[in-house]
C-alpha cells in the first residue's frame, strides 16, 4: 500500500472511525458505491467494517484508508480511469 504516499491526495477526514467515514461519504456525495473489505482501489486493499462506501465526484474518488495507529482517513484522489472503472462496477451491480 506504499503507493498512497506517491499519490496526489487530499485528506477530507483524519483520525476518524470507519462509521464516521462511511457516513461522511453518504452525506456528502450523491454518487457512491458500497464494497466489501479487501476491495481494491488503485493498489490499495480497503480495510473496514462492511459495507465500505466509496464516493465518486466527477473524476474524484473518495475512499477510506485505515492505519493501525491513526484510525481511518478519507482520501480524495483525482483519476479519470479509476473513476470510470468504479462506475462500471456500480453499473454491473
Amino acid at each position, binding site marked *: *500500500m*506504499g503507493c498512497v504516499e506517491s499519490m496526489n491526495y487530499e485528506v477530507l477526514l483524519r483520525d476518524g*472511525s*470507519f462509521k464516521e467515514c462511511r457516513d461522511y461519504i453518504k452525506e456528502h456525495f450523491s454518487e457512491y458505491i458500497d464494497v*466489501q*473489505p*479487501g476491495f*481494491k482501489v488503485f493498489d490499495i*486493499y480497503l*480495510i*473496514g*467494517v*462492511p459495507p465500505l462506501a466509496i464516493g465518486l465526484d466527477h473524476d474524484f474518488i473518495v475512499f477510506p484508508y*485505515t*492505519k*493501525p*495507529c*491513526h*484510525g*481511518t482517513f478519507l482520501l480524495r484522489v483525482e483519476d479519470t480511469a479509476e473513476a470510470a472503472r468504479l462506475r462500471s462496477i456500480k453499473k454491473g451491480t
Partner: protein
Amino acid sequence: MTGEIAEQLGTALLVLGCPQVPVQTSIALYLIHRLKKAGIVPVVAGNKAANTLLVVADPDRHYIGEIMDLDRAIAQITEKKRDFDRCFVFIHNDAGISYAATMNAISKAKLYTLVYGEHQDTLVGQIDFPCIKIAAKAVHNPLPLKKAIDEVTPWAA
C-alpha cells in the same frame, strides 16, 4: 523454548494493532508460545513498530517465527495466495475493529478478537460479525487478558 511438538497442527495469524498499549507485545509473545507448544505455526503481521517491538524482545527468535508487514498479509489473503486456520486480531481502537472485520470478510480462518485497553467495553459492543471475543480491561498489566485467553484455550479448539 523446550518441548516443541514436531507435528504441525495448523497455522495461526496474529494481526497486531498499534503498539501504544503495552500489553500487546507481552500477550503476543505469550500467545505465540502457547500456539507453538500446541503444534500450531504462528505468523505475525503488524506495522513496523509493532513488529520491531517483538523482534527486539526475542532476538534469538525463541518464540517468534515468520513475521510480516500487515499490508502484505492483507494483500496475500485477499489475492487468495495464502490463508490461515486461525486468526487473532489485537484490538484496542477503532482501527482494530476495522482490521478484524476485514479478516472476517477475506479469510476463512477461525477468527478470535483480543480486545483490551481502556475502551474495551465499547469496542466489544461494536463487534457484530462472527468471531470468538476475548476481552479484558488490560492496559499495563497483561494478566487479565492472559487469564481471559487461558479460559478460551484457542490453541486447543
